[in-house]
């Protein structure tokens, strides 16, 4: 196997590589999972478990979310890393626990553009060579789902993997569960954006 020594092409994309197992002291940061403080009057809990093809929890996954605010606007504000507790930046990052579980505290997004409201979820993990994108929609917006371009592109029998389970008020906040099955039975739909 020969390794070419040619210089980089200026226009071809740099390939992805796995985040690996040892990002834990580097990428997670204080406040990463709390897009709003838990005491915000309209804070929601957005959480779930990430599992592999054997149904085992993935305890070294890193999740990022990116979403519109309640009005459907995307924040241009700085401060995702150094949160002030008042500015909603729309970005969050959370490592899974040893149970493969993640929890974000955020606001329910409004609809941005024509789409039904959703949270964009990105999954990184050891063994995942190239991150996975998915979207978490909300069951109460079902009237908007019929015309949503992405949900319409997904086979009906898999569409449910993109919709959070509403758990009602838990611990003072509306709770939405979004489990992510990377492989296997009821595998989550992952998206490839034509970008």
């Amino acid at each position, binding site marked *: 196997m020969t390794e070419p*020594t040619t210089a980089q092409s200026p226009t*071809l*994309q740099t390939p992805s590589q796995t985040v690996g*197992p040892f*990002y*834990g002291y580097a990428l997670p940061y204080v406040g990463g999972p709390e897009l709003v403080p838990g005491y915000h009057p309209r804070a929601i809990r957005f959480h779930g478990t990430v599992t592999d093809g054997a149904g085992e929890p993935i305890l070294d996954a890193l999740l990022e979310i990116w979403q519109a605010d309640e009005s459907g606007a995307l924040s241009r504000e700085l401060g*995702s890393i150094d949160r002030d507790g008042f500015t909603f930046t729309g970005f969050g990052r959370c490592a899974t626990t040893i149970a493969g579980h993640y929890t974000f505290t955020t606001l329910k997004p409004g609809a941005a553009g024509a*789409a039904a409201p959703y949270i964009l979820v990105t999954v990184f993990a050891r063994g995942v*060579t190239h991150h996975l994108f998915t979207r978490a929609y909300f069951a109460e917006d079902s009237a908007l789902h019929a015309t949503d371009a992405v949900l319409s592109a997904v086979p009906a029998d898999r569409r449910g993997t993109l919709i959070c389970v509403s758990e009602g008020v838990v611990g003072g906040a509306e709770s939405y569960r979004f489990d992510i099955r990377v492989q296997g039975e009821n595998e989550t739909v992952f998206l490839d954006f*034509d970008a």
Partner: protein
Amino acid sequence: MTQTPVPSHSGIRPGTGPASQNEITAEIEAIEADAAARVAAGGSPELQPRRDYAPYRSSLLRHPTHELVRVDPEEVERVSPAFGHTDVNVLESDLTIQHTGEPIGERITVSGRVLDGEGRPVRHQLIELWQANAGGRYVHKRDQHPAPLDPNFTGVGRAITGENGEYSFTTIKPGPYPWKNHMNAWRPAHIHFSLFGTAFTQRLITQMYFPGDPLFALDPIYQSIADADARARLVGQYDHSLSVPEFSLGYNWDIVLTGPKSTWMESEEDHD
């Protein structure tokens, strides 16, 4: 957009016990030959790693079996979170000044530009980096490699790209380290990078390698990119003009994100 499960690549026998390096190398070479045959038959080179890459055993249960659903990005995906100098202290780009003493190892700078698929600079965006120390040890509680920790080196840096997409880190050259993918598995020395573009679709986490590493051919993570030219884009170039006399050796590495839409995408090819 078909929804049929992606078939396993033929000729690959995922081991049940630890495989030997020779077995892993044979699997790597079979997949590279398969990728080369697809290109010879008129296909496009694979610009990204295969998700189902059996030589990298951790990928076996961690890749989707359904094809990804190809969709147009909407507003959420077409923008990215904003980061700036109020998020990141400028001193965070120097990994050698985070403790009271100097870290052990070969002091280097890694610098370059972050560009989009049309060669335009990605300005004022967050770039994060993490790495092992000179002995090949990470400051991570699950890293059990019996190499010494360096009390003067954590191995984490952050920066905000400049007007021309430029970045520069001062650090220590990381060491190679063993891992448990197979018997006598060693990772080539590398630095992990995390990048944001102007659209969230451009999000990238990857690894930069050093030129001439004898472990390249043996490493199933590097080789998960089946196209040799594509994976060579992960190798930084030694640039003597970036070396500082009596102080540090300079490496250059430009990073090209996907998009905008005119970029040639691997996913346009139906190679799976």
